[in-house]
């Protein structure tokens, strides 16, 4: 067996699963002492080019309470044509079509390497995806122009049979009828009023007498449900011309904005109408509501700030002081909308581009519950937005959109395990089952979750509780199983089921703690802990969360560190724990938990992304990556530390949200002196270019596109870098020169960062002290 590293990597590649613990403590009591909970980061739609196309339905365990799917871990009785469920031990006959089964002739689902398998349910109808654009018209002319162009561009990216709709809003909300000739027609709603889906249906005059249609089940012929909404949601191929014109003619919201006022912007009402429109026409059908927001909602339901400019939009400070009169109401509105959309299987995206806040803090529930995108930028007229938006419609090798709709994830567990909850872009379906734990972490109390929007990178943190009692030991070599069943609507309209079954060994923590410790995945652990922390931070007080994180870290050190009591210097961590404290250090400092210098919108945005991304990206967010480029050698990753800021280096930092290229002082001078343009300094030019190329590579693939910043020593934008690095040198640094353990000679002292934050070194000192302290 390979190293745990390899094992973990292999498992991730195959199943999209990273467990915090890869060997499971076999008793409940022991499990609770592991500090970092047993959980995994699961990426349901992890891109797998090698999955065989399976065009039949999965075989289910016949026990009604189980219904697990046949998997490679099942025991097969080829002669009897029976299989035993590895979750409930029920023996099940194979269905008739499996009669030819034999050891030599195995169906894919029982071949070990296909612990993850995807079934395509062919009998389900193919609904074309639906895209409903909700566009703010209260923005600067050039911004509006940019969005319009982006949207027009997107029309060409959409499959021709996809349905598309357009809602614009400003003071009023307009639902545009597409494809009308002679007169462009739209239905207008007051932006100050929240309407129920039924009212919207009546006012739009749709679905009259067709109410029961959604009850007709999957057989409902397409034309049936297309009829009523035809006017507002049209196939792209039928209306792309008129929609292009319509978008072209769109004007900025014409309502006058008085001096000292914000434009009246009815985002809340518009979203409500969009949700209502889809709710009454296409419930349980894949649909995206794409909201383009140029500022905060200033009236009606979901308003986040009044229209008086003299009242600034709420800050964290205001929230702390409970001094924001619209926030709670607004959040309630958007949360309800998020739930509604989620219930109907619709995705809500928010593309927010404005220099000031736009109310993402209140609106975050919409994308969060529905798996929608949240994009934050300064202007629609930036490549950040344009490329990001374009990337929404990116396709995989098969030419299919990298998005899925209306997914449900069900988790089945062995008897010794139960599900505590999930944290991620999902909502609970509230399905109680045998495998549901009483303890809740994140969205608990259910073994099924709904993710309306799902992407290859979407990852859920799923947490488990070991329920096996200490006095009921599991035989040596016993394994625990988990099965993740993800049903979703593929962007092609197909209904698919992806099944991932994983198994891990049980170990008795009292006797084999080292086995368990060896199976610790510090990266997964860190990310899972950060998800919990962020989840808590959303509801709890910031300081509480930090204290909790600290406590957990200390306990982990106590549990798994090697040390002599009360001797900090004796403290040692095994390799697979060694980075964990550092992750925690950066997590504590990160924008996820520190709101200082961030607006509530930014905080919400960052947290949202952390809540979605897979492990690698999450780690980057928690602890940014820093590369150094210099004449001294090839590019190398360097410590995220002030010491890395050397004058003769170019640094490239990737924080996930930002890509920062930092030219050291000397480099900057050379550059300004124009050496790069001189032929004899071609190498300098190349050096300058190298990080740019690398940055481009990242920029090309990441979604949403990061903010790209090129700065230099003492440049104003260098703050993005300085705020991330470990402040080992500060204005009041007791550590001074040379004490640092890192590379570099005495001359590369790095740059001091003016902060009162403690450095990693101090943090570690304290940690060790506390960990070894016998009193704690």
């Amino acid at each position, binding site marked *: 067996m390979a190293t745990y590293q390899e094992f973990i990597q292999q498992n991730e590649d195959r199943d999209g699963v990273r467990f915090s613990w890869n060997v499971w403590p076999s008793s409940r009591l022991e499990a609770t002492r592991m500090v970092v909970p047993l959980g995994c980061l699961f990426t349901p739609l992890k891109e797998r080019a090698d999955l065989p196309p399976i065009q039949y339905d999965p075989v289910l365990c016949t026990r009604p309470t189980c219904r697990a799917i046949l998997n490679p871990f099942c025991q097969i009785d080829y002669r009897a044509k029976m299989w035993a469920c590895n979750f409930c031990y029920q023996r099940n006959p194979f269905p008739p079509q499996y009669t030819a089964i034999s050891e030599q002739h195995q169906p894919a689902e029982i071949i070990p390497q296909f612990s993850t398998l995807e079934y395509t349910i062919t009998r389900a109808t193919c609904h074309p995806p639906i895209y409903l654009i909700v566009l703010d018209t209260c923005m600067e002319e050039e911004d509006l122009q940019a969005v319009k162009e982006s949207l027009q561009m997107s029309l060409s990216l959409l499959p021709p049979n996809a349905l598309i709709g357009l809602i614009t809003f400003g003071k009023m909300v307009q639902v545009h009828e597409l494809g*009308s000739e002679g007169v462009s027609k739209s*239905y*207008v*709603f007051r932006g100050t*009023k929240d309407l129920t889906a039924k009212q919207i249906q009546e*006012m*739009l*005059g749709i679905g009259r007498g067709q109410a029961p249609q959604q009850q007709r089940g999957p057989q409902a012929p397409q034309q049936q449900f297309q009829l009523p909404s035809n006017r507002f949601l049209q196939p792209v191929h039928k209306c792309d011309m008129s929609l292009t014109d319509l978008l072209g*003619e769109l004007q900025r919201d*014409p309502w006058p904005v008085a001096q000292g006022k914000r434009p009246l912007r009815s985002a809340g009402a518009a979203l409500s109408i969009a949700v209502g429109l889809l709710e009454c026409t296409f419930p349980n059908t894949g649909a995206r509501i794409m909201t383009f927001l140029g500022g905060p909602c200033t009236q009606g339901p979901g308003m986040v700030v009044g229209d008086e400019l003299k009242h600034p939009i709420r800050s964290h400070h205001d929230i702390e002081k409970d001094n924001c009169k619209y926030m709670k109401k607004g959040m309630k509105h958007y949360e309800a909308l998020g739930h509604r959309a989620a219930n109907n299987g619709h995705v809500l995206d928010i593309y927010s581009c404005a220099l000031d806040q736009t109310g993402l803090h209140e609106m975050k529930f919409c994308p969060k519950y529905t798996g929608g995108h949240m994009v934050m930028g300064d202007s629609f007229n930036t490549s950040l937005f344009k490329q990001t938006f374009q990337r929404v419609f990116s396709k995989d090798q098969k030419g299919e959109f990298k998005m899925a709709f209306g997914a449900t994830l069900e988790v089945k567990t062995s008897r010794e395990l139960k599900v505590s909850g999930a944290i991620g872009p999902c909502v609970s379906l509230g399905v109680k089952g045998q495998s549901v734990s009483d303890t809740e972490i994140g969205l608990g109390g259910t073994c099924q979750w709904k993710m309306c929007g799902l992407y290859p990178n979407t990852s859920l943190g799923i947490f488990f509780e070991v329920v096996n009692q200490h006095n009921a030991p599991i035989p040596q070599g016993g394994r625990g199983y988990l099965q993740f069943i993800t049903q979703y609507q593929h962007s092609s309209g197909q209904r698919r089921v992806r099944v991932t079954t994983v198994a891990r060994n049980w170990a008795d923590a009292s006797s084999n703690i080292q086995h368990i410790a060896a199976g610790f995945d510090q990266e997964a652990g860190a990310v899972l802990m950060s998800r919990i922390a962020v989840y808590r931070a959303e509801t709890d007080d910031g300081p509480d969360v930090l204290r909790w994180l600290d406590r957990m870290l200390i306990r982990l050190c106590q549990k798994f560190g090697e040390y002599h009591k009360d001797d900090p210097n004796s403290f040692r961590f095994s390799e697979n724990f060694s980075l964990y404290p550092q992750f925690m250090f950066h997590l504590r400092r990160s924008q996820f938990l520190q709101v200082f210098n961030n607006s509530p919108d930014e905080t919400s945005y960052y947290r949202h992304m952390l809540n979605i991304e897979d492990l690698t990206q999450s780690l980057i967010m928690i602890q940014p990556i820093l590369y150094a480029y210099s004449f001294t050698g090839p590019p190398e990753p360097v410590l995220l530390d002030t010491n890395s800021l050397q004058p003769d280096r170019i640094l490239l930092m990737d924080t996930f949200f930002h890509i920062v290229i930092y030219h050291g002082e000397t480099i900057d001078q050379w550059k300004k002196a124009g050496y790069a343009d001189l032929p004899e300094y071609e190498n300098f030019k190349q050096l300058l270019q190298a990080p740019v190329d690398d940055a481009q590579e990242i920029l090309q693939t990441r979604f949403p596109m990061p903010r790209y910043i090129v700065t230099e020593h003492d440049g104003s934008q260098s703050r993005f870098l300085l705020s991330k690095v470990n402040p080992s040198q500060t204005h009041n640094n007791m550590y001074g020169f040379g004490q640092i353990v890192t590379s570099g000679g005495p001359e590369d002292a790095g740059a001091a960062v003016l902060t009162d934050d403690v450095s990693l070194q101090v943090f570690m000192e304290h940690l060790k002290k506390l960990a070894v302290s016998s009193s704690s």
Partner: protein
Amino acid sequence: MSGQYPGNFGPGQGGPGYGAPPGPPMPGGQPPNMYNNGPAGPGQYGAPPQPGKPGMGPPPPNFGGAPPMSNQVQNGFQGQGDMMRHAGPPRPTGPMGASRPPGPPGPPGPPGPPGPGMMGNPGMQQPPGPPTSQFQKMSMSGQPGSQPMGPGPGNFPGSQPGQMPPSSNAGWQPHSAGLGPPPTSMAHRPPGPPTPGMMQPPHSATPPQGAGGHPPGPPMGGMGHPPSSMGAPPRMGGPPQGGMAPPHSSTGMPMMGGAGAPPPMPGGQPPTSMGGGYGQNFNNAPPQPGFPPSNMGQPSNMGSVPGVQTFQPGMGGPPSGPGPMPQGQSSQYGGFPPPSGPGMMQPPAPGGQYPVNQPGGFGSQPGFNMQPQQPRAPGPASQPQQPRRLDPEQMPSPIQVIEDDRRNRSGPFQTNQRGILPPLVTTQFTTQDQGYANPRFLRSTMYNVPCTSDMLKASHIPFALSMTPFARLGPQEPPPPIVDLGELGPVRCKRCKAYMNPYMQFIDGGRRFQCVFCSASTDVPNEYFAHLDHTGRRTDLYQRAELCLGTYEFVATQDYCKNNVLPKEPAFIFMIDVSYNSIKSGLVNLICERLKDDILVNLPKESGVDESEIRVGFVTYHKELHFYNVKSTLAQPQMMVVSDVEDMFVPLVDGFLVTLAESEAVIDSLMGQIPQLFADCKETETVLGPVIQAGLDALKSSERCGRLYVFHTSLPTAEAPGKLKNRDDRKLLGTEKEKSILMPQTPFYEKLGQDCVAAGCSVDLFLFPNSYCDVASMADVVRLTSGNLYKYSYFQADLDGERFIEDLRRNVERPVAFDAILRVRTSTGIRPVDFYGNFYMSNTTDVELAAMDSEQSIAVEVKHDDKLSESEGAYVQIAVLYTSCSGQRRLRVINQGFNCCTQMADLFRSCELDTLVNFFAKQAIRHTLNHNPKYLREHIMNEVSQILACYRKNCANPSSAGQLILPECMKLLPLYSNCIIKSDGIMGGSEISTDDRSYLMHLINSMDVHTTNVFFYPRLLPFHTADFESSEMPSAIRCSMERLQDNGIYLLENGVSMFLWIGLQVDQELIQQLFGVASAAQVDIDKVKLTTLDNPASRKLREMVDEIRADRARYLKLTIVRQRDKLEPWFNHFLVEDKGMNGSSSYVDFLCHIHKEIRNILS
């Protein structure tokens, strides 16, 4: 009915005139008789009850024959009570007749010119001339009493006869002829000759009427008596002389009645003549006869006031007759009134006498009433001539009055004197503004205002003004000049804020001016200073409109604007119902086809400007609303649907309201698109409240004032604010419960209307219903916003399209003022108390008008809160602050001055009946919603009776109580008030639909005097008598079935609808020429357009129709009615002198009834 009599009587009284004449001539004996009779007559009436009075017996003697009659009559009356007709006895009215005869004598008066003239020459005279005829007609009964009557007449006649006859004979016709003219000024002018001629006609007319009137009710007969009052005159005769003088003076005032009467008596004859005068006055003509001259003189005396003079004439006549009279007459009122008054008075007074006299009188009167019956009797009796009833010809005729006024007062009318009675609305005149308001803008019920509240109350005449500040002007009349004082703004009194006007007194060398209203003195702003000349007038008097004109405008400064911001250009928003019905009827297509080219190009603009500044916007709707963005930069219009009708709003601001010039192309495109967009619309439910809310919101959000044109088809039943239920139950109309369907069913539209007014948003509602659509509820918003309401039932574009488009075109193009506030300021001592019309008032002084055009008229009642002074007169200033069609804020100021009087006679001489009718009608509309129909009817009759009784009591004492004596200017009051009562809009019963009723009520509420005049008494034109080659209209005839001839073709119009009545016996050639078919039976009566044929007859008919339509604010729908066809009853409905199908009284009956009422009051 009695009323009618009165009229007749009046004339009859003219009889008085008689009396007078007789008086004069026969002062001695006859008069007495006359008196007796007369008095008796009246007395009897009143008396009927008084029978006891028979004591009167004595008088009877005079009556001689009559008495018996009278007795009978009385009995009859009494018995009959109301049944005038029973009057069978009335016939006795014969006496009446007699009295009338006197009338005739009156004419004869000519002989004793004065006398006759005096005599109600008219009445009297008429009688005379008519005597025969009249009597016959009248005679009604009288004759019956005939014999008695005859005698009576004889008597009178006797006395008068001599005189009368002549006059009558000659006089009659002449009179009539002359009458016209004489009537008014007649008296004066005609003095001599004309009058006579004039007189006669009228007389004749009157008498007949009188007769007619009589006929109706036996009581009428009583009325008739009035004529008998003739008898009265006799009395007059008696008392006259002495009394005469007194009466005049005294009578006027107090009830003098008794006293007065006597006095007149002296003038006795005069009185008669007086009576005659009245009658004449009515007729006008009558007086003139003999009197004219004398009258003239007197009148002139009287007269300073023309109007008065008119009366005076009559009066004068009498006076003149009696030497002394003059004086009395001088009091003129006294003169006239006394006569009549006296006559009247006396009758009553002499309760005892009544019996006797009355009997006789009554008898006679009854006779009148009886006429019908009596006719027989009469017929047999005295006049075979006069068949039965009171001859309608003898009752005061509006046709005659109109003709006379037209003849005398057409042409220039200078407003250079305070308190001049203006020409009638039916007269074509050109106002020359010389300091007082053009009567087109402002009319008053009286031009000589009583100094005290008590006097006004006693007269029962409401002091009301009818204002039409933006009335259409005559062709030669220049629009009011616009005065721009720049930054200074209008100069105003510092205390009462009245605007500078010609009556302000500059004092202190011109440095200050004293307010004519409140007497406060205000410093003249430096910029406005001008020196005074030696007469104390400013040297720049004639350079400044506000110092020399009755009507002018100021440019307002910012202070006069909402929020102190100058207004933007107004906007018109066209809101088109596109529900199924609307599409199907072709309405939507029609509007879209015609709106731009026929309507919008006519948007109002300031004179001298090429393009209208008015913004236009378009909305379509059924259950939801569609707004259109027609911004000029768009390639195609954008439609924005708002279906949130619960909470209406306007979805766009930019591009919704545009100027036609800029967005013409887009509008064209829109108009082409709308019919297509909704061609398949199956929506049958509509909303209305949200539509108006939307328009309001649109105007508000663009900060403009303006007008909504809502084209709506059905009851708004869709779920939305302002939703209405079908609650129609036309059976309730005319009952006490009618309020329940005439009141709005929800306060929603009232509230909405108030909101609209506040924003300067006027709503014009065009209804195209196929069924009940609850106009009562919807009209509220139109009423409060001073909008116009149009209704096209069962609209079909091909049939009614032209009418609708024409209405719309006229509506859109006429000058209009937006967002107006009207305020009435008056001299200290009086104040406006009650406003009637379509507008909103949030306080008690400011009338808020969202818009005001030439169709909008407001009536205001003025009351005393202190005394006025005769020397200073009373002034009124109407100021309307408004936004013009180009968005300029302006003030229109209209000034009027009135004389003040302490004599009833002065008051009665200067009343304007048309305005009074207008006011009564509006008052009635208001009562409709607060009281029941019965109350309403009785209220009107009571007011009329009180007015006439007051006159009788104060100004016509000498005549017999049996006489019905009517003031010259109000001799048509009974007729018109009956018309009001009969009007569909006011008393409409289940024969019309609830919606029509509400619709008419709405119309009436804002009608101006010109319109009410023809609305209540339709114009009936005998087409077949027209000269096809000339452009003249044929003379109108009275609205009675009896006037229609089987071989005639008639046009009838009342300003709301128009009928073409075709007799079955019409000359086939004419039919051929007009309709291109062989006979009347083949005429296609479903056609709405006249066939265009190239011949003089066809041309003439179309010319006439066009001319009539051009004269009215609305395009009249022409309905062709063939004699004895199914539509005829409907047509007959408009023959207002006849009995109505809902049991309403004929003119004759009504006159009789009024007369009875008067007698009741007087006794």
